[in-house]
């Protein structure tokens, strides 16, 4: 059944005013058994059985209504789930998604396997957008702010009529005073409409702003090749990867694809395993997974790159280098900074021509990117591990220039109308431009946004934006692959999509998004059987053959001078520090600030939740008089000061301070307001990523909500932690492994144990799980996937501080090895389903027992809550509901709940179930079809989203299964096996591949 049809029929249905009225009382969506039964389904609160104990009524629980469709859509099976393909465009690069819908409610977001920019994986943020859909704080109607700024509700009709007349009035001036301030978008439909827009308003200027702009790369390409080419990686071909301040495994438009390719090359250690070098200031996940990490202040990263280039040039590894460039490189060798590992890196690169990749991150200046292009060409990587494509918008000025120019125009008063499409410029534009102030003074400012936020506050009109799960659109991945954005639910509130609004401006009439997108694609797709092609694209979520074509550009000599200039980079003057800004791993640029899942998602490296902090090298901390995490420091940059809690981070470059953007929102919503500090306050247009800062200790200490090292660990504990980290996350070099494949098993002595009785046999299925620590980058996608799948509540900062976070998957982070240059080690920890589970024997009411397939089942409705099981769990993976965590959840918020999983009441224990509901679903289906279950048919939420395929689940009794193979792998070991828990979850030891003699 084509999703379009389904959706439209649903749409028609919900279009019915009476039903909408009826339904909107509880749920603004619509589905079989909507009113009562769905509520019942996803309010699976065991409060119901409290009534049982009370024996109050003669019925055990209040009677319920079943409200079926009057007209059920074709082939639609009530109470079952369907998956639809769509795309999420963030910062102009899309990820392909599969969205699970239950009775018309989107409840889960996963990656679209057929989309090259997802390959079935997703990052935490994309998964959490489903929570955003149901966010009760989203703006729910058009708001007009007259001069006084007092918000007054308006109808959409009122706005559209006003807009029509207003924009008609601009025709005379050809829109000279019209500006559109938009967030980056890869939508083809938008491009098409923009053409119409430009035709109507030739005088208007389209300004694009992205607080996490990657334009440095564009400019670098312009330096190197004369035009703003887009750079792509093909890591599957790379043996040596050198990442210079580039988090290509996590914070990158193609991160998912990169991570997958990178991990595949580390999988089979018998072949050559790739080697990853990271040069960076703060700890990125790429740095955490690197075989070698050189921690230098961000400002010195180009110097390291230059020195490498110089060595290579000397060694003649860079043929055909123009003399002036050669001279430029020479300047680096005389730079004061040096590090022995630089030579090793150069050797390594020289040893792998055409099989290496030099990558520079967006926070580095254009020249550094140019230098990287230079190296990749010299090392014959261009076109192999690195390839280039034309930029979709070559004419576009860089974000920095564009926003600055807009600010100028606003100052000059030549602007009378500004249309702000999404984004949140008043919050995230460089503060020196004071965009908020200027917007509030412009004659007419129209804002399309999901929330009535900082920007809407200063605009005359706020128009609620339709969530991407509610609207039609299209988007292209970083590699150009295009996909359709299709709605899964009718807009909960009166919402408009960006293309609909711009179409209104350009055409002077409202056109449904569906028609706009369809029209755009009609122009691109073969006319005869367009309908089939269109449906196919909508169904698959991917349009074949839309990938960018690779180009083979020639180096232009112009880059020499700017490259030479890099060599003048110097460390910050004494008494000042280098302050680097970075994207928040969870809140992105701040757009997700109101999503509890993400606010409570621990930062992979610091494990901080509900907070950002100034990351300090321990020695810098000592110098500043910062004794422990949370001590306040004042950071002063570009004349503005900010007081931030400090966090001592081993592995942070000395002299460099890291600070996450995206926190400290003022108008994010009930969840996100005043959480963390707003780092944008220190950001200026000429120091987007790096600023020189003065830092001073301020009195007071903030209690940071961390999910690890909750209390200050004393020296005694620290010593012990270091010892145990080695035993828990067993790490070895490729060499060690090849010498002794079972090295991991031999790390810890397992006392011989003869069972006192004959152990239970598991003849049927025997579920098991394996996690490959070599592949795990610690991105926390599994944690969020689990939270979404299993209705895990958000408990808030106060409870996290108490150590009561509920995540079923805890990604343990250890710093191992030399404290000066510590190794980062991640270990996802969930219930191990031990065959001799210590938790079970201590439960007085048999609420946690084994089933006959070896699952350690936790029966919530039997639990009385003695918490003894948690005490006796050596892995501490059980979570207790200290309070009723759903007490204040509104019905709309509850719509995100997975009806296949019980919502736990107060006072019961919960934990990982290996996604029991998914196992049961497949088992029943298979049995109905009288067939066996195929390996890989059952995929737990965590395994499904893992970008590096680190998690494998399956039947240990199936000799062909991947999990069986993993458990038989010589690298495989069980954590705490020595206490004879016989865990079903086992780990594959972490392998690193340091350069010979550099380990």
């Amino acid at each position, binding site marked *: 059944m084509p999703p379009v049809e389904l959706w439209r029929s649903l749409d028609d249905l919900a279009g019915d005013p009476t*039903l909408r009225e009826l339904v909107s009382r509880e749920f603004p969506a619509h589905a079989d058994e909507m*009113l009562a039964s769905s509520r019942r389904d996803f309010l699976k609160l065991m409060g119901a059985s409290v009534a049982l104990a009370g024996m109050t009524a003669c019925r055990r629980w209040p009677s*319920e209504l079943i409200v079926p469709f009057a007209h*059920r859509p074709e082939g639609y099976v009530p109470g*079952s789930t369907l998956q639809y393909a769509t795309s999420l465009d963030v910062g102009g690069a899309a990820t392909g998604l599969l969205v699970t819908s239950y009775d018309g409610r989107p409840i889960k977001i996963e990656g679209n396997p057929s989309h090259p920019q997802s390959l079935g994986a997703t990052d935490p943020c994309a998964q959490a957008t489903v929570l955003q859909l149901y966010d009760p704080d989203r703006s729910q109607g058009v708001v007009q702010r007259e001069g006084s700024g007092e918000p007054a509700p308006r109808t959409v009709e009122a706005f559209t009529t006003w807009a029509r007349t207003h924009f008609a009035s601009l025709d005379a001036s050809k829109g000279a005073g019209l500006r559109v301030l938009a967030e980056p978008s890869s939508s083809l439909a938008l491009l098409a409409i923009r053409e119409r827009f430009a035709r109507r308003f030739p005088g208007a200027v389209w300004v694009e702003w992205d607080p996490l702009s990657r334009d440095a790369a564009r400019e670098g390409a312009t330096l190197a090749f004369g035009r703003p080419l887009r750079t792509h990686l093909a890591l599957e071909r790379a043996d040596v990867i050198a990442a210079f301040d580039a988090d290509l495994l996590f914070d990158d438009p193609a991160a998912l694809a990169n991570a997958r390719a990178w991990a595949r090359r580390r999988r089979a250690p018998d072949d050559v395993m790739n080697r990853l070098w990271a040069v960076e200031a703060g700890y990125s996940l790429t740095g955490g997974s690197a075989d070698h990490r050189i921690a230098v202040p961000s400002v010195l990263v180009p110097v390291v790159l230059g020195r490498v280039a110089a060595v290579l040039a000397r060694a003649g590894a860079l043929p055909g280098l123009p003399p002036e460039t050669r001279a430029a490189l020479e300047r680096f060798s005389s730079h004061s900074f040096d590090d022995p590992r630089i030579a090793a890196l150069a050797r390594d690169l020289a040893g792998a021509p055409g099989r290496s990749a030099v990558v520079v991150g967006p926070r580095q200046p254009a020249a550094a990117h140019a230098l990287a292009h230079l190296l990749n060409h010299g090392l014959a990587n261009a076109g192999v591990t690195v390839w280039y494509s034309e930029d979709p918008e070559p004419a576009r000025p860089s974000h920095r220039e564009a926003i600055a120019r807009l600010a100028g125009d606003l100052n000059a008063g030549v602007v009378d109308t500004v249309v702000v499409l999404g984004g949140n410029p008043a919050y995230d534009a460089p503060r020196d431009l004071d965009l908020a102030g200027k917007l509030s003074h412009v004659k007419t400012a129209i804002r399309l946004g999901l929330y009535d936020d900082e920007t809407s506050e200063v605009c005359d009109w706020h128009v609620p934006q339709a969530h991407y799960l509610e609207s039609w659109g299209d988007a292209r991945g970083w590699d150009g692959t295009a996909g359709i954005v299709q709605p899964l639910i009718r807009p909960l509130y009166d919402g408009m999509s960006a293309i609909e609004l711009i179409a209104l401006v350009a055409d002077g009439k409202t056109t449904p998004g569906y028609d706009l997108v369809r029209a755009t694609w009609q122009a691109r797709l073969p006319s005869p059987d367009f309908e089939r092609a269109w449906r196919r694209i909508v169904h698959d979520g991917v349009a074949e053959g839309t990938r960018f074509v690779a180009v083979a550009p020639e180096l232009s000599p112009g880059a020499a001078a700017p490259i030479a200039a890099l060599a003048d980079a110097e460390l910050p003057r004494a008494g000042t520090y280098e302050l680097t800004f970075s994207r928040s791993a969870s809140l992105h640029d701040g757009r997700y600030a109101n999503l509890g899942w993400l606010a409570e998602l621990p930062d992979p490296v610091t494990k901080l939740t509900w907070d950002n902090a100034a990351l300090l090298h321990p020695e810098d901390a000592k110098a500043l008089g910062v004794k422990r995490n949370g001590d306040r420091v004042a950071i002063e940059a570009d004349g503005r000061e900010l007081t931030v809690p400090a966090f001592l981070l081993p592995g942070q470059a000395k002299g460099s301070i890291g600070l996450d953007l995206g926190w400290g929102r003022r108008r994010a919503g009930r969840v996100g307001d005043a959480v963390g500090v707003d780092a944008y306050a220190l950001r200026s247009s000429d120091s987007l990523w790096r600023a020189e800062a003065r830092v001073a200790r301020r009195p007071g200490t903030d209690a940071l909500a961390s999910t690890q090292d909750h209390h200050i660990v004393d020296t005694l504990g620290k010593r012990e932690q270091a010892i145990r980290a080695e035993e828990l996350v067993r790490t070895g070099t490729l060499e060690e492994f090849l010498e002794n494949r079972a090295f991991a098993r031999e790390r810890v002595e397992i006392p011989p144990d003869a069972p006192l009785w004959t152990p239970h046999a598991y003849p049927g299925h025997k579920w098991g799980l394996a996690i490959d620590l070599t592949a795990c980058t610690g991105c926390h996608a599994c944690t969020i996937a689990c939270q979404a799948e299993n209705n895990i509540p958000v408990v808030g900062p106060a409870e996290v501080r108490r150590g009561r976070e509920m995540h079923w998957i805890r990604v343990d982070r250890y710093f191992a090895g030399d404290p000066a240059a510590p190794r980062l080690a991640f270990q996802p920890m969930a219930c191990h389903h031990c065959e001799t589970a210590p938790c079970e024997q201590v439960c007085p009411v048999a609420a946690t027992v084994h089933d006959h397939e070896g699952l350690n089942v936790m029966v919530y409705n039997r639990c009385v809550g003695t918490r003894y099981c948690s005490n006796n769990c050596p892995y501490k993976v059980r979570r207790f509901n200290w309070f009723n965590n759903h007490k204040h959840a509104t019905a709309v918020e509850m719509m995100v709940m997975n009806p296949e999983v019980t919502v736990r009441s107060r006072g019961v224990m919960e934990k990982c179930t290996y996604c029991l509901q998914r196992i049961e679903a497949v088992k029943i289906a298979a049995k109905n079809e009288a067939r066996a279950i195929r390996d890989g048919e059952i995929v737990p939420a965590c395994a499904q989203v893992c970008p590096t395929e680190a998690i494998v689940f399956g039947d240990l009794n199936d000799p062909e299964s991947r999990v069986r193979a993993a458990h038989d792998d010589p690298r495989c070991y069980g954590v705490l096996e020595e206490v004879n828990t016989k865990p079903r979850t086992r780990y594959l030891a972490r392998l690193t591949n340091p350069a010979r003699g550099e380990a």
Partner: protein
Amino acid sequence: MTQQGPNTVFVFPAWVDELKPFIAAAGVGLPIYLVALVWYGGSPATTDVGYAPQQPVAYSHALHAGELGIDCRYCHNTVEVAAHAAVPPTQTCMNCHTNIRGTSPKLAAVRESSATGMPIPWVRVHDLPDYVYFNHSAHVRRGVGCVECHGRIDAMDVVYQAKKLSMGWCLDCHRNPDAHLRPPEAATQMDWEPPKGVDRTAFGKTIRERLKLAPSEDCSTCHR
């Protein structure tokens, strides 16, 4: 000889000792009574069985399923493929009732619903606790007849809960399924009987072996 002095001491009246047997009886009987009270009073057999709420439309299964012999699956058409045996859309009623009794006042609500698209708010009769996951397809396809859990729906004018539907009741059947099994194709046949002279349990046993059924007692089967 000294006479016994005047008695001013309080002494319990005789009836106090008479009471002893009764107190003893109460001491033994009361706990027994309380246990019985909770056991039967709290049993779903008391609290749930016979629950027959008033429905918005006086739909009679006795008429449709019984006399007219319409198969359960005509309306509850998802029962073999999904967990829910979906309550039919108004549409389904109208398939027939546009022509038959098209004007009957009894069907006013149905006609209105189909006209306005307003659903008919049926009242749920068989209502398991929210933490119990029952899958219709898993049972119907394994030869557990509708009648086993719902009773003779085809004889009910107003549907009521016929069985306890308590956990213990479910377990009884999962432990000894034979007496409750039938050929899957006969699942919806209310009055199905094993072939003449064949013992029900023995027949069920053959079904169980043919379909390789092993009903599970695992918690994970119903609780997630």
